């Protein structure tokens, strides 16, 4: 609402105060990221401005030492497995849930979404006891399975959202033209829900890639992931390498976000929805 000509001075004052407050809050939101990222190029291991000089030594340490690279590889390996598992399971479930004939929809949906509601510590403790029982503790399998439970809700949510505007007469038309259900799915349904699936997959990847609590509980140093190394690093002595790692991850998040946004637009274009 722009300040109109007929506003009283009090309203005008209020209008500018509101703008000022919003500016401050938005600054509060973004500043930590903007302030911290340049510090990863600092040539000395201190966290103050002005910086002594520019250097890539922390990035070298991140990209060239085994400790960080091992963790990065573990993280990527786990996240890729989680992405595949959760995308397949989550998409199938979303397809089923979005059928009008599905019984007990709300109840099933609540159960499937619950991993993002239950506090992560409880999930971590629960799976820790459970994996201790079945002898999976300190294995990659444990980490992948636990992360998959945490990641599937995101796939379900994004794919369900894509299916919400899905025109079922399209598959019926395909069937009417003689396509068997499998062909109809791969030729008609899949291309239309693919953007949603890819966004879901990316969210699943990020979820696993960023997850630290479960990794702290069920993984041994053998399966240490990037967030785990960062967590223990922050606890002991925070070094600029952690900031360098964080910067790389932030860039990665930005890339993922942009991809998701582009996919969302494409999906809306495909479905003929154009929101203003």
């Amino acid at each position, binding site marked *: 609402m722009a300040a109109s000509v007929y506003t009283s001075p009090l309203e005008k004052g209020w209008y500018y105060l509101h703008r000022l407050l919003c500016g401050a809050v938005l600054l509060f939101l973004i500043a930590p990221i903007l302030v911290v990222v340049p510090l990863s190029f600092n040539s000395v291991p201190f966290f103050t401005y002005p910086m002594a000089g520019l250097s890539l030594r922390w990035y070298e340490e991140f990209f060239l030492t085994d400790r960080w690279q091992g963790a990065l590889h573990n993280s990527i390996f786990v996240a890729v497995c989680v992405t595949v598992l959760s995308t397949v399971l989550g998409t199938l479930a979303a397809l089923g849930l979005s059928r009008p004939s599905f019984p007990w929809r709300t109840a099933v949906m609540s159960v*499937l979404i619950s991993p993002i509601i*239950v506090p992560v510590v409880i999930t971590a403790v629960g799976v820790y006891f459970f994996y201790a029982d079945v002898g999976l503790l300190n294995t990659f399998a444990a980490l992948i399975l636990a992360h998959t439970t945490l990641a599937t809700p995101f796939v379900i949510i994004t794919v369900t959202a894509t299916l919400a505007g899905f025109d079922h007469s399209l598959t019926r038309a395909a069937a009417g033209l003689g396509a068997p259900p499998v062909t109809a799915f791969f030729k008609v349904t899949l291309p239309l829900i693919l953007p949603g699936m890819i966004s879901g997959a990316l969210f699943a990847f990020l979820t696993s890639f960023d997850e630290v609590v479960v990794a702290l509980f069920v993984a041994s140093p053998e399966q240490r992931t990037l967030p785990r190394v960062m967590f223990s690093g922050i606890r002991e002595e925070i070094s600029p390498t952690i900031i360098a790692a964080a910067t790389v991850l932030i860039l990665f998040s930005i890339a993922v976000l942009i991809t998701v946004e582009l996919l969302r637009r494409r999906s809306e274009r495909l479905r003929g929805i154009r929101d*203003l």
Partner: protein
Amino acid sequence: MSTTAIQIGSTFEGMPLRLKLKRIERRQKFKALILVLPLLLFILVAFVLPIGRMLFNAIHDDTLLTLAPHTMTALRGWDGKDLPGEAVYAALAGDLKKSWAQKTAASIGKRINYELPGSLSEVISSARKASVLPAGPYKEALIKISPLWGRHDVWSLLKRGTSAYTGYYLLRSVDYEYGPDSQIVASPPENRIFRDVFLRTLGISIGVTAITLLLGFPVAYLLATLPRKSSNLLMILVVLPFWTSVLIRTTAWVVLLQQHGVVNDTLMALHVISQPAELIYNRIGTIVAMTHIQLPITLLPIYSVMRTISPSYVRAARSLGAGPFYAFWKVYWPLTLPGIAAGCLMTFILCLGYYITPALVGGPADQMISSFVAHYTNEELNWGMASALGAILLTVTLLLYYSFSKLVGVDRVKMG
């Protein structure tokens, strides 16, 4: 369509249409179910079952029952008044001997130690001495070995062990425990820590939720009323932090707030303060970092509700003579309530379970319930306590989630 079919009630291929319709509907239901089934089973086995098992741990403890079986059997007949008779002591001596041989004495000791702090070493040394004890009478011999076995409250404790179910962990989580005669009494003051922990968790969560609402509401309003182009640009400032990992944002706050961090140095360079302020490893650090992390989660639902409110409502109120604040309060604010409820409930639920941020930027006095759950699991290996605290936290969270789904709807959980 189905109703007309039923009304006509005609037959088709020799079968009543109604039956055929029902059959097709059933088959479709089945197909939908088959699609959901793999994930449902996976979540049930890999998520619901482990959590159920954890909840069970909170009330189930058969340590004494499995490690001291003879004593437990003998104790069933004990009336609980005086010290038990020679037969029970003989059973205890036998169990202690066996536990020494099988190296399980420490486990028995640990279990007794939960309820009677300081008795762990007594139990282990009793087992060691009992292992060389000549045959009976055991009662006097055992009491001579350790006065522990002459104490009535120890025997009450052991008697409680004859049941695999115990309320001890749950009672302890709310600062109660069993007295010398198995009655429920308040814990001694030095053990009363959990009520404080729960109140602190609640306090921090309410505080953070209130601050995020206070800060998020005006921004959501701005974003909702600006033209799409400029609001989308500002939206990036909200969504980018939202999708940056919690760990990274917490790291950023550690760097910013530490003693020789950016904030302190800037304030000192500006001569606002003369020496570094304590901004981290205390309540300030926890609240600031948590607010930063939760702000988008409160803001986004409010924003998406505000988007749907037509500005003509407020304009109508104004044209009917309402002042700007009256129009806002009577017309606009009530319309935003669903968004506020969604955002605040979500933030509150997530705050209750916070672990990472308080662990990294909070002091020992800012640890919330989650960190005690982690502490009992990883360090003290007292799984009963971890489960009991977890059970309480989970119950509160699920109750809130239930009201969230009733109020807002599960489908409305969004990610920006």
